[in-house]
Every structure is written in structure tokens, then in C-alpha cells.
């Protein structure tokens, strides 16, 4: 039955083992039902209810995108680069990281988990997560609770604040209004985002049936909307110092690169499957030397080298 979603017998065996771990082998009725669901292409993470992401256990529910290994990879590379840059220990200012299209909350929660020890009495980390979907908001709150207990505990043990907000990211006035509420720390140090990036015409053609049938289209289908929003709003209105966006196609990355102001340095990184996966950029005129983070980030992820040249010729 599991062969519908698995190409090889060892893979199917392995999935069966995980299903047995969750449901027990003697409770055959529930196990059978789980296998039947899997046969109908329900994602394994929705059946088991979770997906490991870095050190965290991220709960998964229908209606919210399941975290991908590509995201996990660049997210851990980024936190590793932040740790190695030693920028947080040296500067006395607070830090703010914002994640758009947060979904399950896997990115901001990993950011907190990996960097929380860097913040001491003098410096505070503010992490904000925004999403348009109310189900995603609820799930990211649940994931925060399962991994960190509550805001008070986090704030007492580490100098970290976390906030989740329902927001239409493409609606500029709404974002401006939301940011206006912050008195203590307005400029965002790092903006991260895993926007919906599958173009409409590729959705039927390329997307796996399990993803197509059960994961939310809101988190999957999109093309340049969020990248345009990045250029026009976040970079254009000087709200951020640096960003990391996940990408699906090279055109999306080139669109961002071609529309960045000259004071911004950017690059495209590959995942370990050699696919263009991220575009990052930082303002070299910012108060903090972000090259210390992103030079290492470039090294950990392989870089798409030809881009810089092709960019000049355009």
C-alpha cells in the first residue's frame, strides 16, 4: 500500500517503520487506516503530525505547508553564519529578525533556538513572524508553545521576544501600520521569507500529487509578487539591512538582483541538490558589517557563480 508514494521497497519499509513507531504494531486498525491514507497520497507528516526541523520538532497540520529539507538547510547555514560572525557579542544594539510567510513557524523558531544563547543582558533579540493564513498563525503559535513553553519563560531565560501577527504582507499600508507600532526597534536586521514560488503553469505539470492534493495552494502558487514586494517595500523603503529569500526559479532571483539599489550586495546560493535555492542581499552602507555573516553563508551553501557576470551584461 505504501508503494503508491514510495518508489522503492526500502523506502516503503522505512515509512512503515515510522508509522509503526507512531501507532504501534498491535493496534492494527489505526495502523491500517494510516497506511490507507498514505496510499491516497496524504503527506506522511500530516499523518504523523510532525516533521523534525533542525533541533526542533515542528507540528504539521493540513492547511499549512510542511517544512522542506531545503529550507532547513539554508536556515541552519544562516544561523551558523550568524554565530560565527560574532557580530552580536560585539555590538551593544538590539537585533530584530522578521520572517514573512512563516507557515508552521519553522524558520523563526529555529532562528530563536540556534541564536538565543548569543543574547545577554545588553542585547535583546526581537523575532517577528507574519502570515496571512489564520491556520498558519494558530499552528506557529502551537509550535512556539511545544518548543519553548511560553513567552514569559523565553524572556526570562534568554533575552528574546517572539511575536506572531496575522498580516497581509502584500498590502503595504497594513505593513507600515504594523511596523509603526514598534517604538524600541524598527529597523530589521535580517528579513527571511519562504514565499509561495511555484508559477501557475508549473503547478499541474511539475508538482508531486501528494503536494498538489493536500498542501495549501496559498503557500505554493506564486511567482514574482513577494519578490516585487521585497524590492519595493522592504528594500525600497529602507526597512531592512539584509534579507534571505527562498526561490524556486532563477528568474525570481534575477528579478530581485536587477532591481536592487547599487548599495546592496547580493548572491544566489545552491542547495545540496545543486538547485538555486536562496537569494540573499545586504546593504553595505548599514551600521553593521553584514559581510561577516554573508561571506560565510556563501561558503556553506554553494554559490551560483555565473550570476554576477550575467547580471552585469544585462
Amino acid at each position: 500500500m505504501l508503494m503508491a508514494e514510495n518508489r522503492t521497497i526500502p523506502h516503503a519499509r522505512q515509512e512503515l517503520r515510522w508509522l509503526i513507531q507512531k501507532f504501534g504494531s498491535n493496534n492494527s486498525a489505526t495502523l491500517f487506516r494510516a497506511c490507507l491514507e498514505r496510499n491516497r497520497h496524504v503527506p506522511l507528516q500530516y499523518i504523523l503530525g510532525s516533521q523534525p526541523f533542525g533541533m526542533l520538532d515542528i507540528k504539521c497540520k493540513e492547511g499549512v505547508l510542511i517544512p522542506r529539507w531545503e529550507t532547513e538547510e539554508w536556515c541552519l547555514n544562516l544561523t551558523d553564519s550568524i554565530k560565527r560572525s560574532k557580530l552580536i557579542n560585539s555590538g551593544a544594539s538590539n537585533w530584530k529578525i522578521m520572517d514573512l510567510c512563516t507557515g508552521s513557524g519553522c524558520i523563526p523558531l529555529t532562528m530563536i533556538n540556534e541564536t538565543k544563547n548569543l543574547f545577554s543582558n545588553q542585547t535583546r533579540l526581537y523575532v517577528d513572524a507574519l502570515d496571512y493564513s489564520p491556520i498558519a498563525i494558530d499552528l506557529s503559535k502551537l509550535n512556539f508553545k511545544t518548543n519553548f513553553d511560553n513567552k514569559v519563560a523565553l524572556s526570562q531565560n534568554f533575552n528574546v521576544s517572539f511575536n506572531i501577527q496575522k498580516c497581509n504582507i502584500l498590502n503595504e499600508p497594513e505593513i507600515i501600520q504594523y511596523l509603526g507600532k514598534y517604538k524600541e526597534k524598527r529597523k530589521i536586521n535580517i528579513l527571511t521569507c519562504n514565499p509561495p514560488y511555484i508559477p501557475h503553469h508549473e503547478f499541474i505539470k511539475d508538482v508531486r500529487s501528494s503536494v498538489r492534493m493536500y498542501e495549501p495552494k496559498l503557500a505554493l502558487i506564486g511567482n514574482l509578487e513577494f519578490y516585487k514586494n521585497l524590492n519595493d517595500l522592504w528594500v525600497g523603503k529602507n526597512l531592512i539591512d539584509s534579507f534571505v529569500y527562498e526561490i524556486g526559479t532563477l528568474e525570481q532571483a534575477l528579478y530581485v538582483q536587477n532591481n536592487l539599489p547599487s548599495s546592496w550586495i547580493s548572491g544566489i546560493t545552491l542547495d545540496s541538490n545543486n538547485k538555486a535555492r536562496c537569494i540573499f542581499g545586504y546593504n553595505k552602507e548599514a551600521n553593521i558589517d553584514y559581510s561577516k555573516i554573508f561571506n560565510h553563508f556563501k561558503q556553506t551553501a554553494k554559490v551560483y557563480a555565473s550570476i554576477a557576470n550575467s547580471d552585469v551584461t544585462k
Partner: protein
Amino acid sequence: MIRTIHRSISATAIRAVKRNHLPPRSKFTEQMETECTEVFIHGGSGAGGQKINKTNSKVQLKHIPSGIVVTSQITRSRDQNRKDARERMAYELQKLDIDNGSGEAPRDVALRQLKQQNKKAKSKKSSKKYQLHKEVNDQLKHEQDLQDQEILRKLLNG
């Protein structure tokens, strides 16, 4: 009786390995980390990112000087698999280092001994139980025989 005493002495002499005093597991050192290359196998050149939802994550670790390759996909977590692969690599490298002819790590030797020990203890326990059972049975049988003889004698005499 002499046999039992002998056995108990020999048993105490062998029982050198204790479950909580095993030689430590081999450790994956910083140096090993620099000598290894790590590859994440996600299979194929097809679609990636949001288009596909992989459930497994395979980690492959290669130790360049010795050419040893280990892989791990035991859990769904890449983080756990990376740790598992490093443990396995450390174990393989330790086996390579040891020149005791058998190619076995001290922990393995101890574990094997422990297993044998437990097996011996178990068989000893069961044979003891069997002995006791047999004695009781013999006793009962003996009594039964005596009773039977008594009855027989009474019948013959009567």
C-alpha cells in the same frame, strides 16, 4: 556437591564485565570532522523545494584518508541522522585502529562477553531450578514407591 562449588568459583572469575562499566563508545573527534566529507542524498535531479515533499533524509559521510563510507537514514531528522553517521564512522575508524588481530573494538568484546555471561547465568539458573524440581519429584516418587510397597506387602500378607 563438589561440582556445584567448582562451578560457582569459575563463574565469579569470569564475571568481570558489568553492564554499567563497559568501555566507552568510540568518539567522533574534531580531527575526524576535518577528514570527512558529508553529502546529503536526496535522490534524482527532478523537482525540488516546495514542489516535492520528501519524507526521508539520507546522510553519507566519507572518511578521505581511509576511504570508509557510512550512511544513515535511520530517523526522519537530518540532524539525528548526521549524529548517527558520525557515531558509526567513529566506530568504524576505531575498529580500523585496533591491532588485536580480531578487528574488534573493546566495547564489542566486552558486549560479547556480557552476552555470554548472561547466557551462562541464565542456563545456570534454569538448571538449578530443574535440579530442585527434580529433587522434589524424586522425593515424591520415592514416597509413592514406599506407599505402593506398603500396600503391596499388606495385600500379600493379608
